[in-house]
Each structure stands twice: as structure tokens, then as C-alpha cells.
């Protein structure tokens, strides 16, 4: 049985006047039903572009230049095959539209941007239903109310007729989750959905997502810069840096036995309970490489303090190496031993 979603050697490049930005440069992963994959990285790592590529909504001048995104689909009209390569479909075609929303849907950091301010929340949720499934308007309204209830919005019968600006930040985020999940997608892409929220509301939304995942069985790709949030919600984690996967492992391994110097440095830079207070935190010196540069070897070369960093790190082509059945690291020297 192939995995629900399989991304293989995905490359998304942005062609700008000054050159080529390799925003995503050879990312591969697979996602099983009901599991959550966390993608963590700092700004400029290309983590959001991965989500956009799967939905085929990479903004211009970005293009998917290589790779496959294989999705297991139910039998659709005119479509016999079971596995669909999303890279090959027309991003504006009917097939892509029918996949977006019904098979894969997305939630964003700022829900205000994904709702139209001139329509009620309910009509926008119903629209998704009416497009993707064969239901009557009354039935769609009932389902929308049910969904709003399910995501924890009080008095959904009344709130369904509210405009987005009438809801608070947390409620809007819940409504967006309702809209994303109303057609029961099998993959949900969540791009920094809790970054704009307060800690207490963030905890509510994370708990809600876990609950809904248990109930609906969808797979989640959760993209965030916040290591804590990623550790809270993920089953497996990809650590991305400069468009490449530095380390991939189950969540426990990433946080307890990080093998890549970058992952370790990231974790050390967050003060934790065992960091003595008011002492110096570990930092990562230097800055990201020039986005226009093409780097053959390890993109962390030059900032890595682990083994001094030598020409091997710089010149040996990037490769993700298996160190245990589920743990992959892209460190040319494998300088950290288990």
C-alpha cells in the first residue's frame, strides 16, 4: 500500500532578474494517513513553498522544475488511476481545483486573508461544499453549522451568518479550520496557523487540530518556525534549511537525539528548563547564504561549529543519509555520533 502523499525530489525555483532562487531544492518525504508531518525552519528556509507546491499555488515567478508529488486519489470522473502526480496536472485546470479543497486543503497564519470580507463565514464554508459535493443548499448549511459546532464555535446557528471581521482572532482561525475541513480532505496543510495567536489560544487550536485529526483521520503537514509547536503536534519532523532537508526523523528522535549540527544548534538556542537562567544562550553565528547562490555541499557549511567544517562539507554533494530505519541526516561528515 503506497503512502497517501509522497513527495519525491521536489525542486521549486524562483526565476528573478538577478538569478535563480532555489527555494526548495530536492525535498522528499512521504505522509501516511492520520499522521502529522512537521516542517520546521527559519525564515527563508523555503518551508512555506513546500506547502504551496503541493497545492500547486506557488506564486510567480516560482516554478516546480523537478520532482513528483504523488497523491492517492479516490476514483474521480475521467480518472482511472489511483496515484496522481500533482506536478503534471494543470494548476488552473478543473482537476487541480477539484483536488484543492476536497482532497487537500490549507490553513494560513492570517485567517483574515483567506476569507472574503464581503461574504459571511457560513456562505464561504457552504461554497466549498456546493462546489465539491452534490448537496442541496439546505443540506450544505446544516453541514456548515455542524462543522462550526465541531471546531468549537459557540452558537454556530448564529455565527454562521457573521462576517469574518465580527469574529475574534481565535474564532476566525477556528472558522478557517471549519472551511478547510468541511469537505473532509485527506491532507491538511497548515502554514504557521498559530503564529499570530496568543499562547492560550494557540494551545486551544493545537488541541482542536489533534482532536479533529483523530476524528476525521486526515494527514496534516504542519509548517512552523516554532520548535515547541512542532514538537507538540508532529509525528515526524523535517528540519529544512536553505531549501533542503537537513534532518528527518520521528519527533522524539529529532528533539531527544538530534544528529545534524543545525538541528542541535536550533534546539540549544531556545532557553529551556535545563538552561541556567541569565546565562549565555547558544547561538548560530553568521547568516543564511546568499539566496541566489548555488551550493553543492552542505548549506550550513561556514556556520557549523561541530567539526570545524572542512572542504568535505563544502564539496561533497548534498545527500540525505539513513542512520536508522526512520532517521535521515544530511551531514556529509556525520560528525555527531549516536
Amino acid at each position, binding site marked *: 500500500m503506497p503512502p497517501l502523499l509522497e513527495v519525491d525530489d521536489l525542486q521549486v525555483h524562483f526565476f528573478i532578474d538577478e538569478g535563480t532562487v532555489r527555494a526548495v531544492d530536492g525535498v522528499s518525504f512521504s505522509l501516511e494517513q492520520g499522521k502529522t508531518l512537521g516542517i520546521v525552519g*527559519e*525564515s527563508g528556509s523555503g518551508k512555506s513553498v513546500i506547502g504551496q507546491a503541493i497545492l500547486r499555488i506557488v506564486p510567480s515567478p516560482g516554478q516546480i522544475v523537478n520532482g513528483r508529488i504523488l497523491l492517492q486519489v479516490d476514483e474521480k470522473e475521467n480518472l482511472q488511476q489511483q496515484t496522481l502526480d500533482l506536478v503534471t496536472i494543470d494548476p488552473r485546470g478543473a482537476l487541480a481545483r477539484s483536488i484543492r479543497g476536497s482532497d487537500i486543503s490549507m490553513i494560513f497564519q492570517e485567517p483574515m486573508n483567506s476569507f472574503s470580507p464581503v461574504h459571511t463565514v457560513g456562505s464561504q464554508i457552504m461554497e466549498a461544499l456546493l462546489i465539491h459535493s452534490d448537496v442541496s443548499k439546505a443540506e450544505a448549511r446544516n453541514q456548515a453549522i455542524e462543522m462550526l459546532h465541531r471546531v468549537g464555535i459557540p452558537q454556530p446557528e448564529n455565527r454562521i451568518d457573521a462576517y469574518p471581521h465580527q469574529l*475574534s*482572532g*481565535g*474564532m476566525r482561525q477556528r472558522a478557517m479550520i471549519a472551511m478547510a475541513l468541511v469537505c473532509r480532505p485527506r491532507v491538511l496543510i497548515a502554514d504557521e496557523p498559530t503564529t499570530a495567536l*496568543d*499562547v*492560550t*489560544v*494557540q*494551545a*486551544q487550536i*493545537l*488541541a482542536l487540530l489533534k482532536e479533529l485529526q483523530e476524528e476525521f483521520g486526515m494527514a496534516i503537514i504542519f509548517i512552523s*518556525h*516554532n*520548535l*515547541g*509547536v512542532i*514538537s*507538540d503536534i508532529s509525528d515526524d519532523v523535517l528540519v529544512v534549511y536553505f531549501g533542503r532537508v537537513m534532518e528527518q526523523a520521528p*519527533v*522524539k528522535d529529532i*528533539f*531527544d537525539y538530534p544528529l545534524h549540527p543545525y538541528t542541535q*544548534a*536550533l*534546539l540549544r*538556542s*531556545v*532557553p*529551556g*528548563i*535545563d*538552561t541556567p*537562567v*541569565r*546565562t*549565555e*544562550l*547558544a*547561538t*548560530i553565528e553568521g*547568516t543564511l547564504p546568499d539566496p541566489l547562490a548555488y551550493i553543492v555541499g552542505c548549506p550550513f557549511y561556514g556556520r557549523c561549529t561541530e567539526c570545524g567544517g572542512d572542504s568535505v562539507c563544502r564539496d561533497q554533494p548534498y545527500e540525505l543519509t539513513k542512520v536508522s530505519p526512520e532517521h535521515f541526516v544530511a551531514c556529509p561528515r556525520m560528525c555527531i555520533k549516536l
Partner: protein
Amino acid sequence: MSASDILIEVKNLKKYFPIQKGVFKKVVGHVKAVDGVSFSIRQGETLGLVGESGCGKTTVGRMIMGAYRPTGGEIWFQTPDGGPRLNLAEMTPAQMRPIRPHIQMIFQDPFASLNPRMTVREILAEPLIVNKVAKGAALEGRVRELIELVGLKVQYLTRYPHAFSGGQRQRICVARAMALYPRLLVADEPTSALDVSVQAQIVNLALEIQNKMGLAYLFISHDLGLVRHFSQKIVLMYVGKVVEYAPAANLFGKPRHPYTEALMSNVPSVRSDFVSHKIILKGETADPINPPPGCAFHPRCVYAQDVCSREEPLLREIGPDHVVACHFSEALDLNGCDALGCAI
């Protein structure tokens, strides 16, 4: 500990913003952005001011800087070298000017807080010029000293802000704030626009400068982990009011307010061996325009009782330096960080 050890003392500080309606800007009500906040900071100490968005923490900082005139309350500032104690809350902008060098601020957005038309040299020289502290070679010398203090190269002085990353800009902001040897630095979310690795650099810089120059920080943040790492005392605010004010170790070790406990449990941890017991609160932060009666936190509180919705709990001292605003502080046995399993 003598009284002169206290650098700044805020007493019952209030700021109400009028809500205006209609053509004639009739005042129809008030947003009680800050409603009775008190705390004090000793020389060279760090006080963390924590709360969720809209709790009024930024407004407190701005009032200390003299950007807003308080609706009520006092801000007593001890001027250096045995100078007089002054109430900043009653001072006019003109009276405030000679005090300004002693109190400086750094902002959240390092992209907005540097003038894009000025070189780094001009930016760093500005405080020295406007206060007529130095000119000529002494000015240049001090500017070089400042840029080296924050770990940047002297060659960068000729560059404009666009040439710097977020972390580097924040360093420039710190350098500018340090130019006049302030006694207090108000840091309003100085790292929340930065990546974690850069955030750590700024925190280290701030600690290093504090050790070197012995100044005090008012560190305003929503990030409990960072505040814990950085501060000796913590004020936790909720909808314009102080809910708990205690030394950091006491607050994290044994919180006395249910909101503190819930907030701590909600911080996601990066350690999987800490299985945290999350207290998921109902609802969201109360609206400061129309706060709930009684304790503002009672609609979300898991321990709330009838009295909480009727009577407002007053701030009271329940231990050494430990102040809390809850009816049931003594009755409740709240869990601290260790018991909750949160790894912040």
C-alpha cells in the same frame, strides 16, 4: 537594601483611552488599557512584563517613556548620582527632556525603528548630538565604541539600514540606546520579529551589556520561556491589570494565580521527555473595552466560583515580594513548572 536602590517605582498606573463616536468626537466610553499597575525595578535588575496581546504591557512601557500621559498613578524615577526622585507621570515633555538620556527604549520591529535615510554613523551619533554630549573626534570615537559594543564592524558605519539583517539592525538599535549610558532600558518585544537563533544572539548581547554597564531592564514580552531566562522579577498582566507579581523563581516554581498556571502549561516545549499537562482555557482574552465583572479572568478560569464573577480580587501580598490578585490564592494548590512538566 536602601530605598535609593530602587531605580523606578510605578504606583497604581492607569491609562484610559477615550472611545469617540460621531462627527463631534463625543466620548462614549473608555478602554482601560492599563488599570492600576504597580511594580518597582532596582538598579541593574531585569523585570519581565508578560501578558497576551492587548493586556496593556506595551502601554505601560510607552508611559514610562513619556509617549502617553498617564490617566492616573505615579512613576517615580531615581535620577543617577544621588539626584532627586522625580515623578515622570507629572512631567511635561520639556521637563522630561533632561531625564531622557537615563531611560531608553528598543522596539519590536528593527525594520521600522531605524531611519532608512540615515547611515549607521548618523543614527548612532544622533543621541550624542541632540544632547550635546560629544562632537568632532570625541563623537567619532564614541560612535566607534558603540558599534563595537554590539559586535558590529566599524566599516559598517557608512552603510544604510537596508544593508543589515533583522538581528544586525536590532544590534544597531541597542547601540543607539546605549549611547547615553542609560540606567533603564525598556525593551518592547525586542526579539519577537527575529528567528530563534538570532533571538539568542540578542538575548546574549543584552545580558552582556547589562553585566558591563549595570543598567536595569524592563523586558516586555509574551514569551514566557525567554522572560524566565532573562528576568529576576516578573509582572504578569491580564486585561490591563496585574494578576501576579513575584520573583521569577517563585512565579515559575509555585504560581499563585490560575492564569499563571494555565499560561505556563500552554507554552509548547521542545523536549519530548516533558509530558506537559496542558490546561486548555475556554474562550479568549477578555475585551478591554467591556471587561467581565468581578475578576476579568473568571469566564476562562477552571477554578472560578460565584464570588469571582461578583467581586474583583484586589492585589495582595501573600508572601515575600509575592503579590497576587485572586480570591483563592491560598486555597488553591497550583502546579509550578516542574509539576506541570512544562520545559520552559
